């Protein structure tokens, strides 16, 4: 019961803050709200027993939001941030049409999938009692073992990519050598 209440609070927070991020004119507040969205998402991850993913989400996105923040400071001036011009845009304008069509179609697809799927009949859901994680399981061990066996190649590829990015960044930040 309590778990459900907490779940719905988190879901409501995610939806509300995400909506506000889009609607708000004040960019700085929008970015802080974006962090609220991501933090509540981390809360939802806990409910799927992906606690490691939840914490990683917080670690990664704190840094991410901070960097976004600094970009906002760099790329916009304070007058714009403080007095967002009240340009009135009608919701049903012709330039909104493509976006609306795409969103509407996507929504239709989602509805269709929900209606057509028969979750009771799917094999892996039927067998879910035996093969799913329990709240007491130590998920870290599964993660570690899987990363080092089944997903070793993707793991190495990702680490190579990150290494390249690091070296690139270090190279760009270097002082120019005098000729």
């Amino acid at each position: 019961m309590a778990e459900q209440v907490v779940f719905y609070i988190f879901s409501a927070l995610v939806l509300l803050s995400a909506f506000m991020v889009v609607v708000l004119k004040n960019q700085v507040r929008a970015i802080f709200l974006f962090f609220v969205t991501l933090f509540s998402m981390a809360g939802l991850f806990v409910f799927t027993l992906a606690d490691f993913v939840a914490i990683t989400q917080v670690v990664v996105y704190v840094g991410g939001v901070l960097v976004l923040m600094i970009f906002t400071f760099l790329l916009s001036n304070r007058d714009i941030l403080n007095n967002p011009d009240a340009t009135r845009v009608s919701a049903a304008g012709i330039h909104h049409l493509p976006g609306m069509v795409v969103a509407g179609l996507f929504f239709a697809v989602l509805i269709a999938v929900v209606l057509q799927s028969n979750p009771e009949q799917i094999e892996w859901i039927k067998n879910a009692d035996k093969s799913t994680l329990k709240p007491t399981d130590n998920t870290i061990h599964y993660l570690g073992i899987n990363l080092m066996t089944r997903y070793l190649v993707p793991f190495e590829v990702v680490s190579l990519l990150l290494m390249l990015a690091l070296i690139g960044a270090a190279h760009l930040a270097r002082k120019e050598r005098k000729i």
Partner: protein
Amino acid sequence: MGLKNFTFFVLRGFYHLTFISQNFGKNSGVFFKFAVTTKIKLNLYIINVLIGGLLFSFTALFALFAVYAERKVSAFIQDRLGPMETGKWGSLQTFADILKMLQKELIVPHVADKLLFAAAPLVIFLSVYMGFAALPWAEDVAPVSLNIGVFYVFAIISVESLGILMAGWGSNNKYSLLGGLRSVAQVVSYEIPAGIALISSVMIAQSLDLHVIGLRQGVASVEAIKFLGIWDVSKTGGVFAWHIFQAPHLIIAYIIYFIASLAECNRAPFDIPEAESELVAGFHTEYTGLRFAFIFLAEYSMMFLVGMLGVILFLGGWNTPLPNIGSVRLADWTSGIGWGFFWTLSKVLLVVGIQMWMRWTLPRLRMDQLMNLCWKVLTPLAFLCMLVSGLWRLMVM
């Protein structure tokens, strides 16, 4: 470990608290007597709230004590007397300060972003306060025993810099914003050596659960532990069983962590975010009254939090420093719930004392020196420690 285990641990911790109070008999406070009479029948949610309240009052009390200690320590280092007028040796000074602060007006600058300005102190304090949730105080006494405890505390600590940037921007003041930006640059950089140093200890412990990590550094350890990888001290315990002596390269890792944690607390010699001589008071220039009190509370709680994390990971947590010598079972005599609290507190207070000593001894680092130290000295050394940890685990243990 999920909600079930969470409540279980809270219960167990609470049970032990009631147990101590029974043993201590007359000296136990009103709270403990209440707990003893109602025992486990208390609703779980009430217990959760009580534990939270206890932790909060602890941080508040600690901040009061630490501010007084800081003023006295700084005074003695600079050959002054410090506060002497209020109470005996000025001992009531911080109570007077907090009383004054509570009465003060909450001034909001006219052009500030009112919402962010008001929210920032809460974000700063909450991020530190939430970190306490995963820290064990003694054997089986932990608010939560998360199986990713180390990672959790590490993540929550970094949220603080978000609050600092919020305060810096919200104040709408050049000094505050500069302070906030500096703090972000510093915290984001120093997280790396701190994290790698923590990982090198976690690799030795083979667990991210702070309670398990603490457990395997004393006589209560299930697996065999070896002093310097040679001498089996599972039954001897004491100082020999601490992580830094199980694997000596962890001494270097601890020093790296300690330096980096100073930077994460924004304390001298890494206090450029609030550098008084350059930025007035940095990100908290505009704050008054209760809001300022919260920022201060967060700063001192943060000192305790990072100190305690280091103590659990490197310095044996709640385990006693006294070893068993033959039939003189010093380690067995000085282990237990009450002793656990005592050792945790005394070790962390010692670390906090060293943090204060550092602050009043060393001059402030310049921004470029700060970054040089982080990226060119601490980070490579931390990586080296991690490598040695791996080799140690494979070859020695």
